[in-house]
């Protein structure tokens, strides 16, 4: 029996369970304590004897995963793969949404027809008021749009008229300038012709 106060630390040391500082302290203590040194030697001999009994080979491989019996069924494997695959989940969600839209599209006309039939069948007073208000609002909106169209057309015509007048004025100015040039040229030709008819008069 080890009576040294460090006997428990010694056992922890034998099983490599001491931290750095405690380990270093015990390693300093060992050469100074014959009891602990003998105890450590004895402990190592005992554990070495125990470890000398080797592990047995397993008689047969664990037949768990490698056996088909334990593997998930094809259906289970499909669903296992399904829930773990984002692309498959995404595709399924898209299909679900498309299906919902299709069903919604197929059912909507029937519901509308029912409402219309109900409205024409009963014709409550409130419904007539609403129809009258809607007609008035539509007529007002149409009139407003027509007025805006007429105003716009008037503006466009006025602008076109102004532009036409400006172009006409510019054309007259250009014609006047051309006439002036022609008159000047005619004057020059007349002077030149009178000189050629009376050449002596020029020298007299």
């Amino acid at each position, binding site marked *: 029996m080890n009576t040294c106060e460090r006997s*428990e630390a010694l*056992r922890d040391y034998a099983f490599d369970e001491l931290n750095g500082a405690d380990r270093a302290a015990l390693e300093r203590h060992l050469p100074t304590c014959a009891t602990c040194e003998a105890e450590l030697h004895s402990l190592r001999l005992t554990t070495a004897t125990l470890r000398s009994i080797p*592990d047995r080979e397993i008689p047969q491989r*664990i037949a768990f995963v490698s056996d088909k019996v334990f*593997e998930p069924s094809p259906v289970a494997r499909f669903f296992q793969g399904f829930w*773990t695959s984002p692309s498959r989940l995404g595709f399924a969600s898209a299909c679900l949404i498309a299906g919902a839209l299709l069903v919604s599209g197929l059912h909507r006309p029937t519901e509308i027809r029912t409402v219309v039939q109900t409205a024409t069948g009963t014709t409550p007073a409130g419904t007539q008021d609403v129809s009258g208000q809607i007609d008035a609002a539509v007529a007002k909106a149409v009139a407003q749009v027509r007025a805006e169209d007429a105003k716009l057309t008037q503006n466009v015509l006025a602008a076109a008229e102004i532009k036409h007048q400006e172009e006409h004025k510019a054309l007259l100015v250009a014609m006047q300038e051309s006439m002036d040039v022609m008159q000047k040229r005619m004057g020059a030709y007349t002077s030149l012709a009178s000189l050629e008819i009376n050449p002596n008069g020029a020298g007299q």
Partner: protein
Amino acid sequence: MILRAVEDADLIASARKGNVEAFNHLVSRWEKRVYNYLLRLTGRPEDSLDLSQDVFLKAYQNIRKLDDPARYGPWLFRIAHNEAYSMFRKRHPDTSGDAEMAEREPAPGVSPEVSIAVNAAMDRLTPEQREAVVLKVHEGFKFDEMAEILGCPVSTIKSRLYTALDLMKAELAPVTNRGIR
């Protein structure tokens, strides 16, 4: 050790996503250790094999519940411990799970004298002491890992282990003094 831990963590991550082959690799890595742990607890090869099957089946079913893949070893041995004690309780409901050791065969490759002495010394221990010795000496678990496997404080585990080793030191003295062959 670090590389092995990383590889185990990768396999666990893959097994969690439903990769059966990754779990199969884990089984092949750990089956011998689990089997020998159970064999040292029960002393019966057939029981140990059946229990090992159950351990890996439970591990596969619960792999998603494993919080820290680095603690796979203690987690797996915790399952093995529970399975073994569940079997003990079924067979001996009145003994609160005490294991009844079967007569062990001498280990191959070791002198019969040493093998018999070790088996006799192990049989003298209580099941709790024997399990502490197996987990520490044969399986090399740290005290905190043993506490996780056995579900008790480190101080209790140390007490069981060191008491067992004191007993075994005396039992094995005749063979250890002559040296191990």
